[in-house]
């Protein structure tokens, strides 16, 4: 039992160490299906948002063409692809929307549902979520 305790604690430490390691490669970009894959995911994502009555209200005055373009750029960039993000900062974009924690999680669920439909495996999804998670503070309750 004591050995189990030690094993658990060292596993925790290893997990910590790995969690702070950043990768500079484009393997995530490739796993998402490159630009074509990211375009399909974004298309599905917008579809999914359309099914959620509470989230869609935030988009009532949005230029969806621009949103789509900027979102694709951002995912491409964050996943290590050959894109530059030319949109506004997350804080600027979501300011004044008073997006709640629940709405944020529902949006993440919409994105994972979109990736499910596009056949992106869960481990690739986790890798992308890790890239997006730090943005949450700039998005909710602004």
């Amino acid at each position, binding site marked *: 039992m004591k050995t189990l305790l030690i094993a658990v604690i060292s596993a925790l430490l290893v*997990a910590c160490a790995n969690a702070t390691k950043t990768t500079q490669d484009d393997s995530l970009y490739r796993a998402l299906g490159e630009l074509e894959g990211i375009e399909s995911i974004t298309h599905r994502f917008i579809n999914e948002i359309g099914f959620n009555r509470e989230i869609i209200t935030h988009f009532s005055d949005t230029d969806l063409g621009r949103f789509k373009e900027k979102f694709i750029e951002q995912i491409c960039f964050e996943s290590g692809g050959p894109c530059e993000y030319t949109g506004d900062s997350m804080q600027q974009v979501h300011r004044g929307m008073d997006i709640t*924690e629940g709405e944020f999680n529902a949006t993440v669920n919409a994105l*994972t549902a979109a990736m499910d439909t596009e056949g992106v495996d869960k*481990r690739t999804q986790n890798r992308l979520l*890790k890239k997006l998670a730090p943005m949450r503070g700039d998005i909710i309750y602004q």
Partner: protein
Amino acid sequence: MKWLHRPYASMMFLALLVGTPSAQAEQVTGKLLAAPGVTQVEGSGGGGLVPWAVLAGYDSREQTSGTVFSTQVHLPDYRLNSQGVAVSFYDRVEVSYAKHRFDLGTLGGALGVNDIEQDVLGVKARLYGDLIYSQWPQVSVGLQHRWLRDRAVAQVVGADEADQGTDLYVSATKLWLDAFSGVNVLGNLTLRASRANQFGLLGYGGDVEKSHSINAETSIALLPHPQWAIGAEYRQKPDNLSAFEEEDAGDVFVAYLPNEHFNVTGAWTNLGQIAGSKEQKGFYLSLTGYLW
């Protein structure tokens, strides 16, 4: 309530109760799948043996949630049955209740008692952080207060007190997204001040140690997929009675979380020596249903 005494029948009932998705499902859900964990044997949100810093339901800061659970532990010489409810408010406070029935089997015959029953009331408050999104782990403090309904056995084994007792704990829990090759990892560390003998079933304190001692409890889980968690837990326990050694507890578990309405956990658990019966190892099965 007769169904309380038929564990498996009540589990089926529970499954029926929560199996029908509510109309709310299409709307905003507060947390990611697996974020509330499962239900700990004393009724708090957590792993199986260890309470975690997460609160029991899928509520976010704007919501409340209610859960019910049922847990069976099959040991060679005993059976533990735990059922209860938890309500959590605005991802801030959780209140839980569990009823334990500890069946003594043939051992009970000698003492003229079939089982030991106790009630556990739990309260937990989130102090800091978010399981997934904050830089540091989510931290909560909690208490579990127990009342023994059947005190005869506690008195026989020499407990200092056979009536009621309180545990206090602090838990830190974190989920690392993509900790390694796309697998999410959850880690928990809990420190508990307790004087309970065998989860309180054998009373509180004894001749070796009368007062609270600090015990470490830890869980680790790998989530390769949002619907599946596999992991292990370890729970240090007080050892207060000279006549009946108490050992630390541990388990390895698999949890399946198909949706936001229910999840099921199977575990192989080792509770060590209990009231003189050695090597109490066995199968643990737990079902949690999310009502709203």
